[in-house]
Each structure stands twice: as C-alpha cells, then as structure tokens.
C-alpha cells in the first residue's frame, strides 16, 4: 500500500503543478482521486516524499530478498543431519556415531551357528542351512552376486583368472580342482565371511542369505564343468 501511495502522489503532483486545476481530471489514473491527509502530504513536500518513497522501496526490496534468501537457505540446509554430513558437535567431525563395542541390535543375536557361521558342532557344515531352499531364484541371485563380488578375481567361470588378478592380485586356485570340489558348503561360506589367506573377507558387502546363494551357485559352476551326458534330460539330448 505504502509504495503505491508514494508513486501515485508523485504523479499527481507533477501534473498539478504544471497545469493547475487538472489534478482532479486525471482519467488515466488507475487509482482514482486522492483525498484527505495524503493529498496534504503530497502537496507540501513531494520531493521529501519521493525520496522516502524510494527509500522505503529499497528497504522493502532488501528485506524481501534477504529474508527470502534466509528462509530459503534454512530450508536448503536444515539443522538435522543427512547421511555422512559433517558435524561441529562431535570431536571427530562426523555426525555418524560409531556403535559401542559389543552392541547387538534387537533380533540380530545370530545364535544360529549353521546359518551365520557355516558350522555345525564346530565342523564346516556339509549342507546348506534349512532356511535356504534351493530354487531357480536362489541360483539366479547367487549368479548375480557372484558376478558382482567374486568374478573380478575368480573370473565368471571360477578358474581364478579375473581382471584384478591379471592386474597383479594373487592368483587363487580354480574352483574346479578336486580339493575344492570336495570341500563342504560351510567352508565356502566361511571363506566369504572371514576371508582366506590373501583373500579379504566379504562380510561387510554381502549379507548371510546372499553368501549362501553364492555358495549354491559355486556348486552349480563346479557341476557345470564336469557335466556328462547323463546329466542332461533325455528330452533335450537331441538338441546338443
């Protein structure tokens, strides 16, 4: 309102002083006529008024932009932490707090030795745990995970000549040698979990159900390299 009134009175005064008497008949004026105190002000010191009008305009603009920016900034960077965000509050500068040693999340006690450690009575388990059912989905999942995490070293077929080995990593033995073919399922699970010799453990990247899926897939790979005609169903043998 304020700004409008200032502009209006400025205009009115300009006309009025040039052509006395024309002030009332100002048909182009969108605001209609001015009466009362405003007209008084307009007539007495329009220079002052124009000046203060400009001043108010500038202040308004400044207020709008600064508070606008400020509000916007506050929505943009809210005080709550996002993942990995830096913190000035904690000494190590990180908003993520490390777990107290020995913390067990509810429902994550992992008592089942067979499922979580691949062991039965202290020996490597010979079979998959009962929670894992061998289905086509499981093998496809195992294949996918194997190709993500293992094939870079063990290569897609399991001979141990992956890309990273070609670039200088230690060469693992082929999964298709007799010794490894004879190893129990639990052994593979434990190698994935804890590593073996120069191979690192993958417990951080792969969760237990996927580790078992990989074990099942490696078993399939091993079978595939020693398949005989007897393994092929009779109905499709002619297609070979």
């Amino acid at each position, binding site marked *: 309102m304020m700004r409008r009134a200032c*502009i209006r009175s*400025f*205009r009115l005064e*300009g*006309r009025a*002083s*040039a*052509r006395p008497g024309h002030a009332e008949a100002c048909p182009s004026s969108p605001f209609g006529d001015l009466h009362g105190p405003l007209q008084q002000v307009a007539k007495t010191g329009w220079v002052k008024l124009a000046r203060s009008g400009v001043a108010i305009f500038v202040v308004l603009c400044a207020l709008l932009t600064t508070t606008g920016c400020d509000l916007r900034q506050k*929505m*943009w*960077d*809210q005080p*709550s932490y*996002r*993942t*990995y965000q830096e913190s000035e509050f904690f000494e190590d500068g*990180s908003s993520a707090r490390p777990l107290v040693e020995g913390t067990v999340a509810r429902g994550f006690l992992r008592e089942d030795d067979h499922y979580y450690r691949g062991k039965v009575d202290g020996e490597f388990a010979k079979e998959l745990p009962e929670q894992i059912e061998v289905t086509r989905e499981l093998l496809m999942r195992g294949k996918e995970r194997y*190709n*993500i*995490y293992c*094939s*870079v070293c063990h290569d897609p077929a399991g001979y141990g000549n992956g*890309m*990273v080995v070609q*670039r*200088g*990593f*230690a060469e693992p033995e082929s999964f298709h040698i007799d010794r490894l073919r004879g190893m129990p399922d639990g052994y593979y699970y434990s190698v994935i979990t804890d590593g073996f010799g*120069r191979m*690192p453990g*993958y417990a*951080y*990247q792969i969760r237990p159900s996927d580790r078992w899926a990989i074990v099942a897939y490696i078993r399939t790979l091993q079978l595939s390299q020693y398949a005989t005609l007897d393994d092929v169903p009779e109905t499709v043998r002619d297609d070979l």
Partner: protein
Amino acid sequence: MAQVFGPWANTVAKLSIVLGVFFVAAALATLDTIHRSSYVRLTGVARPQPVAFSHKHHANMGIDCRYCHTTVEEEAFANIPPTSVCMTCHTMVWADSPALEPVIESYETGEPIKWKRVHDLPDHVYFDHSAHVNKGIGCATCHGRVDEMPLVWKEQPLFMKWCLECHREPEQFIRPREEVFNMAYESPKDQHELGEHLVEEYEVKTHNHRLMDCWICHR
C-alpha cells in the same frame, strides 16, 4: 520560486515506472539465469577429490557399481565405500603407488577419507535410490556415463522440473531391471511400447499422476 519540473516531468515519471519495472524484471531474470547456470550448479564440473579415484579406470575392469555402492538397491542412500573396500584389492594392487597413499594412511589410522559430495539435493527434498533402481531406472539415466568419468561430475543440474519430467512419463525412460547397471544401455526404437509394458509389469505408481504429488519428494 520557478517551477523546477515542467510538463515533461510527467513523461519522465511514467517512463521511469516502465523502465523501473523492466530493470527489476531484467535483474530478476539475470539472477535466475545465473542461479540455474551450470556455473552455479556445477554441472559437468569434476570436483577434485582427496584421492584421484577414477570410475573410468575401475569400471572398465568390469567392477560392478554394487561392489562399492553396496546399498543402492536396498536403501535411499547409495553409500560411498569405506576404505576397507578399496583395500580388498589395494592390499596388493598398486599398494606402493603414491596415488594411493591417502587410502593406505586412512586404512592404518581409521581416519575416514573425506570425499567431496558431487550430488547434493536441498534438505527439503527426499530422494530414494532403491525406489528407482528396483523399478528399472538405470544409473546412467540420472548420472550419465559414470564409467567414462575419470573424476565424477554432475550430469544433471537436478532441477525439480527434471525430476517431474520423468515422474510424469516414466515410460520414456524405464528399462528392463537387468539393464539398470549396464552403463552402455541404449533405449530401443520401440521405447514407448516397451516402456508402457514395463510400467505395467513393475507396477509403477503412475495412476492419477501420483508421482507428481508434492509430498512424494517434499515430506
């Protein structure tokens, strides 16, 4: 006292209003253009990182995105790998290269490497990777060919209108789930048919333009 302002002052006054509006509009438009420019948005600008980690180099060896960005399929946030993941290979490969010194130091001291964020939406926007990746939106659709970037840059300025463009018609961008991590995937000629089919198959919530609701992203 003589008249300081003659009738011409009316013209000046009128003109100044028009010009004033014009200048304010021009100033706002300029500000907006600057604000949206790739200069401010940092699109296409590779950020220097504490370690010269090259996606190009690593992806070309056939290392899958998920080897490092483990949570991208299950969580909203695509994690940045901890130093221990780099060390699954770099205990042996290039272990004594000066380029890897900060990595090895971080591994020994437990002090994390401070990577600089490349993509950073405002805090008033919610984004979820798993929602996209599991419905057949490929990494490359949003991030560009990361497998060809020596240092990561932002391919998209991440404007709201860009999100909405796809949320309005996901069938233009969707691909089969198996291809999400394939960086070189190119949409086929019959993208529109395939897209409509996939949107239905994956049950993408497009009915009533639900993906356009403000609360989907501003919650």
